[in-house]
């Protein structure tokens, strides 16, 4: 899918939680996150993380130098979940 769009001259980037699948498929640019499937953009209500993942992916459009580029997002799933819990407890406190 991504390769088909890139072939048409439109720059693309994907986010992935399955590094092995990404390495087999060879998309032009990808960001790998060591997160749970179905949670490509992080954890509930953690807007900053969701936004950071989108912006990191889009930055690869400008920064990737060769096709097949895979950028490793520098955060573990455990860190994302911990931050998510903090965000949620702050939201509850604000209610």
């Amino acid at each position: 899918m991504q390769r088909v769009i890139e072939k048409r001259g439109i720059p693309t980037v994907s986010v992935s939680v399955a590094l092995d699948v990404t390495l087999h498929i060879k998309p032009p640019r990808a960001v790998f996150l060591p997160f749970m499937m179905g949670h490509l953009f992080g954890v509930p209500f953690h807007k900053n993380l969701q936004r950071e993942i989108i912006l990191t992916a889009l930055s690869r459009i400008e920064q990737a130098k060769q096709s097949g580029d895979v950028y490793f997002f520098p955060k573990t799933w455990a860190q994302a979940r911990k931050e998510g819990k903090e965000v949620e407890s702050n939201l509850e406190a604000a209610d």
Partner: protein
Amino acid sequence: MEKSNEEKQLRPGLWATVNERYPGSMITKTDFIPLAKLIKPLAESRLSFVSTSGVQLRGTLPFDTAHPIGDYTFRAVPSNSKTSDLEIHQLKYPTAGAERDLNVIYPIERMQELAAEKIIGELAPNFYSFIGYNMDAERLERTLAETIADAVEAEKPDVVLLAPA
């Protein structure tokens, strides 16, 4: 795959596991697609989004999540949709997070905010969604991928973000 990479993935061995059970269903490419160039800054670029999450507008025909070889259709989702107008029809990934906040799999609100702040120029009129459970990889590439690419390209995006759930 190098062991170091194997260890980085939360659920390792996905490609091999699925391909063992459904031979030929997983795609392998040996070549790389030449990089297309961004022709204007992101702040002036139109963004499109393609997702395998099975997210769709409430009231549209639900994806056939029970079909043994998958559903080879897609849905256009207006990029100005509210998350309360959307629902998920997909069985093949954990939706624990998405049920509480759809943005973890389909970050439509974050993209709307980035466009409103002009960090991204604008959003394409529609985003596109299908389900990742498609067992006939050749059919997927020959039909669905090309059809979605036609729909995406017609809206003249400068950049496309893809999210294989």
